[in-house]
């Protein structure tokens, strides 16, 4: 019984890992102006640009970031080339 719970919890915690798509985006903070480029993983319900924008904006807002735009939506094979540029904002939110 306990083991089953743990398994479910583990599956829930791991669910972002089963994301079907990723997006790279640009965001800003005001006064003083700060900018960042980041990569975020999205559930497959949010793989369109508009849905991705909505969800990304909500998730980065916790640190006061304002989404400027979603640059592209890509699959897991596109992560490697973007990791260096995104730096600390690679899959952070």
């Amino acid at each position, binding site marked *: 019984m306990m083991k089953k719970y743990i398994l479910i919890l583990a599956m829930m915690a791991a669910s972002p890992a089963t994301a079907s798509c990723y997006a*790279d985006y*640009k965001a*800003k903070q*005001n006064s*003083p*102006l*700060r*900018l*960042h*480029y980041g990569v975020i993983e999205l559930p497959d319900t949010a793989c369109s640009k508009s849905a991705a924008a909505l969800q990304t904006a909500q998730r980065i807002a916790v640190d006061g970031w304002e989404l*400027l*735009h979603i*640059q592209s939506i890509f699959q897991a094979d596109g992560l490697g080339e*973007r990791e260096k*540029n*995104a*730096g600390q904002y690679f899959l952070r939110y």
Partner: protein
Amino acid sequence: MPDNISSATEPRLNGSKVVAIGIAAIVLILLGAAVLLFLNLPDANAFNARVEQIFVENNDLTNGTDIKLLEILAQSGTSFSDTLASYRMVIFVLLVFASALLVAALVFLVTIIALNKRMGEIERTGIQVSSLLISREENTVYLNNMEFKLTEAAIETLSVLAEARMDEDLLSGCEIEGMISGRPASDCDEAAGATRIKRLRDSLGNQMVSELLVKNIARRGYMLAIDKDVIRMI
């Protein structure tokens, strides 16, 4: 119907109205200029918005260093906009000075016009004596620096009158005759004093008119000493 009556007070009223309207116009124009100035100067966000636009429009600008550079660019723009704000203050102060000077200039202009009108009136009232200098030794009197030669008796009369004027006194004919001849005033004839006054008037008036109005130019003839534009015949 009082509406049809125009009186001399109207121009003066119009004058003060003109001043009020002029001052209001100056203040309005400069206020408008100040408002335009404050609205049109870019604020700090103009630079930030521009940097943001560059960031969004260029898909290649994803490198961390590039982004850092963009942030520095925006910060330098912001500090420049602080400088602009101080310039704006300076310009505003200068505008206030300018409006004060314009208002003062307008007031002075109106004052000068009013003074000119007064001057014209004073000129029309005729001769205004601003200085009277009596020289007994030369039997000469200087009126406004115009020199008039008088007889000894006429100078005596004028001196007596001048002394009485300085004491704010009025003299009767008897008193004038008495003071000049040295006898007590009760013994003197009123007519003798009147004669002295008449001779003084004749002598001085004749010379004054010849100086101010009917001039004699030596060996050439006589002419009126006035501007020919002021002559009118009715």
